[in-house]
């Protein structure tokens, strides 16, 4: 099925649209409209009404987040765009910036206006060097055209956007760790409260938003809140979503689809079905930190709310599919090793607990697991999730939770057979 395209409306595979192309397709009209006819508070209200939820993984309502921001507080304030994107299975922000980078720049300028932040940063991983260069060019072009810099379109509002290449690790994507990193410190997460809106970058009020979140803003400004809401297929959803497909599918590409699209449509239509005609076994619906969905979940509509009823989360909507021949214990082990390696080392449950969970899963894979290991694994889930300093460890437990929800018998099978049944 063909769906309306906003973020990908200019998409030509292998090419990047810059200023001229972007302008031709209506680019910067949202900014002009904002600057000429809207107050900062009105922008925030509009975004609130649109129902836009953060695309960085947590799905927090963007307008609500902005409404906590002290935009009239004097002194420096910051907007930061999170383009760390290191979660396995997640690559949509990269695609967006390779396709149409001006969308982010325009979205950031409007957001900076709404929040009244004269300074904005894009925190981007060094591995996305091409995207960083695209952004730098877009920033230069926007400045040249008077959409960015001092006194934008004669409004008196000024804004600078800095592109910051980070050394980039998974933890850098956690917003407070990102701020530490941006300050030049070790990217350890920080205590909340105080939230970044109160004490963020350089201890000043800061809002952190994801690339895709910000890229949606001018579409909301031009199309209106009701239109944006109506783009989703479900009542609860709002707007479209970039779904990054990966794993055992015929087509592993990034698609822009309405929120609320079913898993079945994603797998069998857009993904071209499971690779080699095999059967669908499971998927990570929203990146590596979300609990698995299994074959009985194919009819679940993927929006932020509906998916939680199926016991998972939409996360970043990076859908990684596993076919029937995949050992889910092995998949989980692989993921846990990633999280254990990426733990910042700050808090005990994550730093020391994740390697232990990995060790337990190894016992299963090596055929040395016993009932005791199974109960230990179940116990660890309780001892780590909700006990850690930041959400990394919580996310790491997503696949483990999924394993118990959908594939506990596979664990038992490993014990019974004394080996990995898939090997």
């Amino acid at each position, binding site marked *: 099925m063909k769906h309306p395209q906003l973020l990908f409306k200019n998409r030509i595979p292998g090419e990047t649209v810059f200023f001229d192309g972007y302008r031709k397709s209506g680019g910067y009209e949202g900014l002009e409209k904002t600057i000429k006819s809207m107050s900062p508070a009105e922008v925030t209200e509009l975004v609130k009404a649109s129902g836009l939820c953060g695309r960085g993984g947590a799905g927090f309502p963007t307008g609500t987040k902005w409404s906590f921001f002290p935009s009239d507080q004097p002194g420096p304030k910051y907007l930061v765009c999170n383009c760390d994107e290191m979660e396995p299975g997640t690559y949509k922000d990269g695609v967006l910036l390779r396709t149409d980078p001006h969308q982010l720049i325009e979205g950031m300028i409007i957001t900076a206006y709404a929040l009244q932040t004269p300074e904005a940063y894009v925190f981007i991983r060094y591995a996305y060097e091409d995207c960083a260069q695209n952004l730098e060019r877009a920033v230069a072009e926007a400045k040249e055209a008077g959409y960015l810099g001092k006194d934008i379109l004669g409004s008196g509002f000024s804004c600078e956007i800095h592109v910051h290449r980070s050394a980039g*690790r998974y*933890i850098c994507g956690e917003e407070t760790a990102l701020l530490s990193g941006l300050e030049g410190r*070790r990217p*350890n997460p920080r*205590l909340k*409260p105080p939230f970044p809106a109160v004490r963020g970058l350089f201890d000043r009020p800061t809002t952190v938003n994801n690339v895709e979140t910000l890229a949606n803003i001018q579409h909301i400004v031009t199309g209106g809140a009701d239109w944006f809401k109506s783009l989703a297929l479900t009542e609860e959803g709002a707007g479209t979503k970039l779904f990054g497909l990966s794993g055992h599918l015929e087509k592993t590409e990034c698609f822009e689809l309405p929120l609320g699209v079913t898993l079945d449509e994603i797998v069998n239509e857009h993904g071209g079905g499971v690779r080699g005609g095999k059967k669908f076994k499971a998927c990570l619906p929203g990146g590596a930190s979300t609990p698995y969905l299994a074959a009985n979940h194919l009819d679940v509509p993927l929006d932020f709310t509906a998916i939680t009823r199926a016991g998972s989360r939409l996360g970043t909507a990076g859908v990684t599919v596993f076919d029937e021949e995949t050992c889910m214990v092995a998949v989980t082990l692989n993921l846990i090793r990633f999280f*254990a*390696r*990426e*733990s*910042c*080392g*700050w*808090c*005990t*449950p994550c*730093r*020391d*607990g*994740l*390697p*232990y969970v990995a*060790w337990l899963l190894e016992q299963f894979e090596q055929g040395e697991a016993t009932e005791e290991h199974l109960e*230990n694994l179940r*116990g*660890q889930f309780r*001892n780590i999730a*909700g*006990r*850690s*300093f930041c959400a990394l460890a919580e996310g790491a437990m997503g696949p483990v939770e999924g394993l118990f929800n959908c594939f506990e018998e596979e664990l038992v099978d490993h014990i019974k057979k004394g080996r990995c049944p898939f090997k």
Partner: protein
Amino acid sequence: MVNLTIDGKEITVSKTATIYEAAKEAGIDIPVLCYAKKLLPYGACRVCLVEVEQMKGRLIPSCTTPVTEGMVVTTMSDEIQKVRKTVLEFLLVNHVIDCPVCDKGGECDLQDLTYEYEVVTNRFEGEKFDLPTDEVNPLIERNMNRCVLCGKCVRVCDEIVGYGSYSFINRGFETKIATAFDRGLNCEFCGQCVSMCPVGAILPRPFKFKARPWQIKEVDSVCSYCGNGCTITMGVKDNKVQTIRFNDKIGVNDGNLCIRGRFGYSYANSDDRLTTPLIKKDGELVEASWDEALEAVAEGFKKAAADKGVGIISGARLTNEELFLLKNVAKAIGTENLDHSGGECYKGVTEGLVETLGVKASTGTFPQVEDADVILSIRSDFYETHPVFGMVVNQAVKRNEAQLFIVADKKGKFGKLPNAETLLHKPALEVNVLNAMAQALIEDGSAVTDGVDGLDELKKSLADYAPEKVAAATGVPAEQIKAAAKALAGANKSAILLAYGLPYTAQSKEIAVAAANLAILSGNVDKEGSNLYLCGEKANSQGAIDLGVIPAGSGQGAQQMLDAAAAGSLSALYVVGEDMVTSYPDREKVEKALDGAGFVVAQDLFLSPTAQKADVVLPAASFAEKDGTFTNAERRIQRVHPGITSPGEAKTDYAIFELLANKLGAGLSYTGPAAVFAALANEVDAYKGVEFNAIGAQGVVWGGEELKAATKKVVPVKGAAAVDGKFVLLTGSALYHSGTVSTHAKGPVAVVPEAYVEFGSEDATVLQVADGDMIKIKANGAEVQLKAKVDKRLPQGVVFAPYHFAEAGLNKLYKGEAAIAVEVSK
């Protein structure tokens, strides 16, 4: 205030409290590992998790979560028990568990918690860490195999010490604490990280295998080094001070110490201590009995008094009670020639402050500085003279965003703080800069002049100190002078700090007067919470001033006594607790005086170069053997308690004075320090009403938290002329040492074993000088040789050398000038 319920107990606490603090107040114990009262909230170890009814579904870290109204907290349940136990199991997975040989055993938080939560077996197996230990330096051993990554060492070194030795490196399971480039520790060695580490990962090396904690007797006393007056808790075993224990419960220092307080105690245990009296016979000092020695001293003084007189010069590390007895001894001898600390350096207080503000001490207390929004520190080495006060300034700047201005002739650690600005002037021109700041306030009309005496005269004299003019002479930009003055005047609460001591004998009074003028004109004197601090170099510098161990009536001051003795017009010198040959300016003059005085008595712990020249040497006791009081630089009278007895026949100065007075026929019949204190409190107004035995753990601040200025008189004071010369030598104090006594302490000596001359990197490059090169320095017709040290804090053309070391003979070069032109060659 906030009301909440913890374990069914209803309690009311301050709204800034965390759950942990609230529980503690209610007498409910929650285990913690990474929490520390004096550090910012952290929340990493997760042993302090509790349940909160309003936040169901998660466990809440009690150490970081603020209380809210109506909160219902449960601190123990099956779930909590399980999670805590798991956290401990996790921590133990790769911990070496070498408790039998770990010095922390018996007071290790991990050991205690493991015991409490009965972590008998570990369900988890893992590789034990096998990291090499860092034992490159002599003072602090780091064994990261025992580390629980609580981050306290990292945080204290950054947040409080302001040094930043440590950081976390690596990720995940590989995470560990490391220094820059993971090399051996090389820092200030203040030992704050040692005191904060909850396990045996950072330990004091001098204490290794010395004692188990329960074998140790703890004795609270006061550090004998500087005027900061830090509380130190001695760990005593076998009549030796084995270590200094961590104690953040009492005192002004919040458990913080500098290297001298933490590792400098060992001079008390030194094998070089004098253990018997010595009498010079045929040019040799030979052992004698106390009776013989005292007889000789009494005889000698009696004879000298009848001849050209006796002079008494004391140090400022004696207790108040001892200084009081010394005054009695002076009376018994019949001399008014009584002085201390070289007689010059403290004049900023006894003359400068007296003439302007009518007070004889700092007007505020240290903790008040934490709330100051503008701080003016005169001399960059404030941090080096009073390091723990320096840490208070750190916190004012880093936590409370105070603005810090430093008027100094070299850059220092203060200057590296955020919001800090150094008004870097040419040597010896402090007064010029302070005058210019005063002038700036007068020029822009913001000077406070209500009720100020002497204004017209001051204005006249300040006309020569327009910021622009002073800028040209001192090298400090006029704009900077004006901005600093403006900030100071605009402060809600300001603090002006000035350290004084033996290495700064020149312009003592002038700088203090200029600072006091500025304090008056900027409103510092009038505003509540704003104060002027003059901090003495020695533990009881303030006490010596309070007790009036200064010349009175027709009495001679220290320098006059030395001149007189050198000229043969003083018959005897009694030098108590002072190594004049090493530490007083103009060594030649001191030596001549010792030679010229017919009879010299030295009372000391060591056979110092001064004592070597004496006719009788009396072996005295260290602070660790004394009972009495010190008064610190914020007027806090604190109790000194004896932890050990003196070696051999050494006696406390108290005991010696008493015996000597008896020999002199002036029987002193005090029953002990309490009685002496009562007698002195009767004579010294400020101490009236203070009772020795009622002096508690926080001491008694005489005059109250804020000492009201009795007068507000501005006094014209002349600046100095810049020193001419290709190189100018500054002397001063090194962070690691204090006076000369620290050169007998293993800790400070391990880090800075000998004198050095410091070059800025620019000069070092031009002169092709590298660390360790021998350098000849010539001035005033003398030459000394010192090892070079290259640093970044000195401006071009300025060299610095610390004054503590006897062999270096630095005081052969300077005669009391603030700075001198020197010739420098390799």
